[in-house]
């Protein structure tokens, strides 16, 4: 944890203006942050996806935003998948369809 913080905030890899490069393409912090959800949702084309990823990996200023959003999503996903499906629901549906079958 400490090491990561040091890496983020200790300057270093991140470009002077927070710009990072991926395959030669430089994108700004502004652009990376604006694409954050599209990046996380896998909605960017391969090239942009790579560029945004490279930015977040190397930019100390932006990286925490990705971490927070990932942590948020993990939490939401877990909560949404928690509810148990009622026992017997499947059978009730199958019966319902069978009944509707013979009605027709």
């Amino acid at each position: 944890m400490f090491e990561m913080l040091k890496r983020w905030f200790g300057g270093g890899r991140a470009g002077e203006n927070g710009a990072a490069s991926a395959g030669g393409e430089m994108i700004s912090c502004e652009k990376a942050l604006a694409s954050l959800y599209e990046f996380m949702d896998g909605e960017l084309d391969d090239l942009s996806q790579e560029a945004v990823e490279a930015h977040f990996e190397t930019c100390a200023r932006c990286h925490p935003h990705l971490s927070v959003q990932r942590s948020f999503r993990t939490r939401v996903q877990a909560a949404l998948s928690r509810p148990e499906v009622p026992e017997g629901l499947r059978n009730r549906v199958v019966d319902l369809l069978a009944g509707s079958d013979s009605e027709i």
Partner: protein
Amino acid sequence: MVEDTGPERNSFEDEALPHLDAVYRFALRLSGAPDAAEDLVQETFLRAFRAWDQYTPGTRAKSWLFTICRNVFLRHRERGMRHDRIVETQAPREDTGGTVGDVVNPLWTSSMGSDPEGSFFEAIVDEKVLEAIDALPEEYRTAVVLSDLEGLAYAEIAELMEVPVGTVKSRLFRGRRQLQEVLYDYAIEMGYIGAREGPEDPLRASAGEGA
């Protein structure tokens, strides 16, 4: 087609029924209560079964079922038959425009120093998270559930909700933002996030920004 319901029945069981759990979880978030969700699932599958000849094989049966499920839900709600335990907020009318690009939540600038990973989310119990999701306007809630739980593409969600992709983006943005704000406030209240260092509170400072 003809009277031959046997093979049709089989393909429905193969293609549609495996999505029962997913449809139930979606229905549960739409309706907010297990009983209502069960009813919704049964009606969804019955309608899907009866309209099975309109389903294009090879397309996503799951999306198709979600579409039916939501339409059934909305129709019931219109008729005021909603089993309603949810206090749902209303989505602002103009939900296409706005500040979609502005992903940086002013919230984080205050907590990031002490919690750069956003690990406070882990401390929040499921019930609280679900309660916050259920309080979202339906338009936001549906988008968030379909994206974050089901991993549907924006284009699929757009088709399902019959809105442009840009609107989906906007709904996801707003829904997630609203959720984060509620959960953040809760985390502060519960002491999962320590007292903030600076005197300024970006969230409060920008309160009423109309996001």
